[in-house]
């Protein structure tokens, strides 16, 4: 054994905390996801006090803390608020790079919806461009945010 600690090899052990989790969408979140799955409809929820339409919907208004219950259907078309194009692969990505990400304010909504962008050359992306939702086919829809495949440029 080496006399000096500095001369020893420093041992490092591999490990992995592997925890199965479940996450509740809540009834408001569930209704939104079920509408995506069953009807290809994007729904929001309106605060009667602040007059804001939230997409995705949530059960309370973050401004007035009021309880929300007024459902509204918003358009599947909207405006691109910002975008980014991932070229760097990572283990959490759902599809292969390059992946274009965007935040889309749907017509009738006051908030943006974060999702992926498709059927577009990254060079053509512009803030303010009109996009529309492309849904997966019925048998692939499972009441998930990924039931929307991506948003593509309109026209």
């Amino acid at each position, binding site marked *: 054994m080496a006399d000096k600690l500095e001369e020893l090899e*420093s041992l*490092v052990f591999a*490990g992995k*905390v592997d925890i199965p*989790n479940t*996450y509740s*969408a809540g009834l408001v*979140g569930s209704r939104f*996801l079920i509408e995506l799955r069953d009807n290809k409809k994007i729904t929001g929820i309106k605060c009667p006090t602040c007059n804001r339409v*939230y*997409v*995705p919907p949530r059960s309370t208004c*973050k401004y007035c803390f009021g309880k929300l219950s007024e459902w509204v259907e918003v358009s599947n078309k909207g405006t691109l*608020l*910002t*975008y*980014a*194009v*991932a*070229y*760097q692969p*990572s*283990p*959490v*990505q*759902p*599809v292969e790079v390059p*992946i274009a*990400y*965007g*935040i*889309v*304010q749907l017509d009738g909504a006051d*908030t*943006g*919806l*974060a*999702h*992926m962008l498709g059927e577009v050359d*990254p060079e053509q992306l512009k*803030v303010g461009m009109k996009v529309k939702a492309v849904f997966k086919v019925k048998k692939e829809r499972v009441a*998930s*945010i*990924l039931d929307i495949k991506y948003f593509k440029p309109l026209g």
Partner: protein
Amino acid sequence: MAERVAIVAAAQTKYHPDRSDVTEGELAYEAIEKVLQETGLTYADDGTGIDSSVTCSQDFWDGRTMSNLNIISYDGSHLSCEDKIAEDSTNAVYCAFGQILSGQHDIVLVVSHCKESQAEKSIIENAAFDPIFMRLLGFDFLTANALQATRYMYKYGVTAEQFAKVAVKNRGNAKNNPFAQEPMDITVGDVLRSKMLVDPIRLLDTKPTSDGACAMILAREEKARKLTAKPVWISGVSNCYETHYLGDRDLADCDALVSAARRAYDMAGITDPLREIDVAEISEEYSYQELLWMEGLGFCGRGEAGKLIDAGVTQMGGQLPVNPSGGMLSGNPTVVAGMARVAEAAQQLRGEAGDRQVPGAGVALTHGVTGFCGQHQCVVVLSNK
């Protein structure tokens, strides 16, 4: 405020890409040992020593729940009171400040540690996102922050060249900081030619993987004056959360930082930050963030920070040097980054910052951030008077 709280000692490890030669506790102790030696303090709850510790670490990075268990034998928490903060470590400084002002404790040790080398960054960051609506899309902080950078450029006309100037300035400043991990002589062209990771963010717009720790001792005024001839006073502090969901706010703005800064400035009696603050240490995990956070901190109007970097206002020798240390871009681990800012600013206000000293610095702004797109912002104002 009747009672005042001072930083009486602050120390950092040298930041390094891979400290696999030490445990988390051993790494933390490298910084703790320095503040114990500087003050001559030991752990004691009888009024003669450190009577509480606030630690800062994050379970996912440490790979165990109750990550503070990694360091209880190194920070005295098995002998006295201990609290853990799992956000950026500026919040640990805030917590210790509150413990002292409450009258509960007199002398508090604050320690932050993180070894980014030992876990997969994108998986940890992805787990910070809401699991139903955002996590499945594969976001990590890099991709979310790229959405913020694009929006910031679009709304205010700030450019990739201006972001690159931040990367050049800070890595150049790091040459004067013996604790910095990646001092570099680079040009704007080098940044703009570096690998595109997530457009518009390139490799040199980001910080390297980093391991390190920071330790600090805070004390109430009466004790502080006995412990050091150069106390650094915490004159203002506050924090604030943004909304979580990415689409809920305009990412080109940072209202949480505006709010946190306003409260911290009110406490510190600051009305004109650009004129009254001598040096700023801002947590810029990405180059664009230094400019965006400067606007949130009220150093200029919205969309005007690009002009300040162009005019050299924030370089060494400018009106307000920002990140003389080299900032996060030169290598600090997440979690530790905010305390590194506070420790650097404390050295500045003691006139002990060596080659990176801002001459005559009396008031410093420090800032820490947790999460993507400036999710949680914390502002700490320091003064040597």
